């Protein structure tokens, strides 16, 4: 039986600032759909990706209402990935860990998904992953 593959992503970027987070989300989705387990260590600003108090908004420049704008906050994408990464029907499992100290620094305690952890979790991910991709802040 082939060994189950897994990838670890280390993310540092906060939401709404770069294209790297969106790319990481898409990579995670692609891996999960291929049956590859995905571990994420959200570090520094990335712990705000799942902050549950994020709210979609209307866009006064576009003249759109909240509904018309259909703005998915990163918390919604994260929650969808957690749901997708349930390991069912051939999909991979997602284990999303937020750096606890980074959460404390930012006060983003309420999360839409994932769990609180530490660099020790990242170390464990590294040890057991097929590969690791670090996506740092630039």
């Amino acid at each position, binding site marked *: 039986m082939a060994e189950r593959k897994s990838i670890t992503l280390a993310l540092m970027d906060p*939401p*709404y*600032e*770069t*294209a790297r*987070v*969106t790319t990481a*989300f*898409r990579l995670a*989705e692609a891996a*999960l759909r291929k049956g590859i387990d995905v571990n994420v260590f959200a570090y520094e600003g990335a712990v705000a990706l799942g902050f549950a108090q994020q709210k979609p908004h209307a*866009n*006064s*420049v*576009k003249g*759109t209402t909240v509904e*018309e*704008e*259909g*703005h*998915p906050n*990163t918390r*919604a*994408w994260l929650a*969808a*990935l957690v*749901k*997708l990464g349930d390991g069912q029907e051939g999909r991979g499992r997602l284990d999303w860990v937020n750096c606890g100290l980074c959460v404390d620094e930012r006060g983003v305690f309420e999360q839409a998904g994932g769990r609180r952890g530490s660099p020790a979790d990242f170390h464990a991910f590294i040890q057991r992953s097929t590969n690791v991709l670090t996506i740092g802040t630039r």
Partner: protein
Amino acid sequence: MGKILNVVERAYQGTLEEQDDQALWLVHTLQKAGGEHAVLLRGPAVSYAVRGQSVGSLEIAGVKAGNPPRLDQDLEKLRAAGVDLYAVREDAAERGISREEAIAGIQWVSRSEVPRLFVEASRVFAW
């Protein structure tokens, strides 16, 4: 007194998540509030002027972006709101962008003309 010149260089950073460009959005809002603004696109941001660009329908794990960014259209709306639009000619040429591909209403300037824009502006905001 000249307009406030907003130099936009950083491009496509957070636009998928925000569904627009943060600097352009703020300029539009400030203009609507009664400000007098201009935008200078330089570096990677000259690509914002390319007509017809679209990211289609971005969807992650079944959650769809309802209103993906249309930077070319956002520039046209800025112009309609009275914002002067400039772009650096050499930066476009380096990226293979021709004027024919760009939206109308862009005032193309060379790099050597940028200091003049700075001098004429009441303030210069670098984004």
